[in-house]
């Protein structure tokens, strides 16, 4: 068994929270710049120029790209040959988030109770997604998730008879309903299959997948391309002011499912699609 100290986990999560919030991933920057080159909407070009200027300022001055520095979604892929020592893993993740959000001057956006509210003051707890995988390493990804876009996400339990058309219509309907609210241009994550909860998790994983990659199955890779084109034909455009660039990426992830069902979840993200990964 390889031992990993919780202190190492705390340190990495602190750093990832700050880095993810201040520095947009290269694939996302590249997608925005490519869309700017093709944009022809009247106000849209200026909006995309400002979005590019914004992430450049954030990069150069180490500032949060967006004031909604999100809920800290922390993905842990823990090798089965790792022994975590020195403390409680969940507490370590939360301590890393607490330090990152304090020392990085990030906004504390978490309330202790969904109905009775009340800010926790340190952006904890993190949303932790744990997977046990082969090996003796821990892969840690922090993806701060803003809620302007999270609020426009949707899930539907389709009958299998709805087929592919049902899913296509659902994607278009969800983006139409979202309209200007999630700060377009968006990144759209689609999760199909599994169970009710697994479909939603797949959708979240889909928005974390680099935008310059395709689903390995050509059937879904083609569907990603087709649906991105259809979404961008809606004319919503950057910030909803009209234009070609409604989304800069659309990723689909799938899982086997039950004979009676076809769950489909759509997780909407904004152009500030943040995630940073490190392996211990």
């Amino acid at each position, binding site marked *: 068994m390889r031992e990993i100290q919780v202190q190492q986990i705390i340190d990495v999560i602190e750093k990832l929270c700050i880095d993810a919030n201040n520095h947009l991933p290269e694939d996302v920057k590249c997608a925005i710049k490519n869309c700017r080159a093709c944009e022809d909407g009247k106000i849209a070009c200026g909006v995309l120029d*400002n*979005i590019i200027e914004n992430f450049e300022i954030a990069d150069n001055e180490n500032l949060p790209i967006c004031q909604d520095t999100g809920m800290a979604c922390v993905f842990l892929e823990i090798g089965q040959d790792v022994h975590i020592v020195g403390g409680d893993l969940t507490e370590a993740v939360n301590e890393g988030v607490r330090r990152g959000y304090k020392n990085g001057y990030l906004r504390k956006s978490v309330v202790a109770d969904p109905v009775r509210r009340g800010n926790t003051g340190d952006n904890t707890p993190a949303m932790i997604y744990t997977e046990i995988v082969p090996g003796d390493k821990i892969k840690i990804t922090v993806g701060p998730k803003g809620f302007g876009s999270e609020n426009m996400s949707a899930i539907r339990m389709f009958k299998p008879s709805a087929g592919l058309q049902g899913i296509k219509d659902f994607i278009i309907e969800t983006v139409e309903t979202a309209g*200007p609210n999630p700060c377009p241009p968006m990144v759209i994550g689609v999760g199909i299959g599994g169970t009710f909860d697994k479909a939603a998790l797949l959708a979240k994983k889909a928005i974390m997948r680099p935008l310059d990659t395709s689903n390995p199955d050509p059937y879904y890779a083609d569907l990603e391309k087709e649906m991105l084109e259809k979404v961008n034909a809606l004319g919503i455009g950057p910030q*909803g002011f*009209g234009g070609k660039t409604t989304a800069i990426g659309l990723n689909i992830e799938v899982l086997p499912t039950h004979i009676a069902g076809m769950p489909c979840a759509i997780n909407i993200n904004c152009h500030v699609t943040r995630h940073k990964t490190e392996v211990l």
Partner: protein
Amino acid sequence: MAKKITLPLTPELAKTLKAGDEVLLTGTIYTSRDAGHKRMCETLAKGDPLPFNPENATIYYVGPTPAKPGQVIGSAGPTTSGRMDAYAPTMMSVGARGMIGKGARLPEVVEAMRKYSGVYFGAIGGAGALLARSIKKCELIAYEDLGAEALRELYVEDMPLVVIIDSEGNNLYELGREEYLASKK
């Protein structure tokens, strides 16, 4: 070409602004979002005064990140305005006229904008680092316990905005999209 405008947002000034106008806004504005609006409307219901004079005021729906040492304010882009729809007509009824945010508004907000000559400006959602540059002064004036949601008075210079909904109810979200799609036919 962006139009330079200086606050306060009087009814006369409000009426000159049209959906789709790009503006550079200068003057004093107030920040508030969900919890601050809830508290302000409770204050008004009790017949008590607001922490600032709402007459011709402009409210920015924002919860900034904490300022680093030497900064006026942290990143400060708009939040989704629709969550303030329940409170916006009440705010306009006591004189507040300008709103800065992003995203769709309910018909009752647009109705109140027509009645009180309100203007809804859009700031670029997700451009918090850029927008912070136009904020020259920031002072916490009330509700400190709400953290990022506290009420702040800001002085902004040439803040880049777009008029989304004007005082006649014209809506850029509808017009901009229609115009773009028509240009593709």
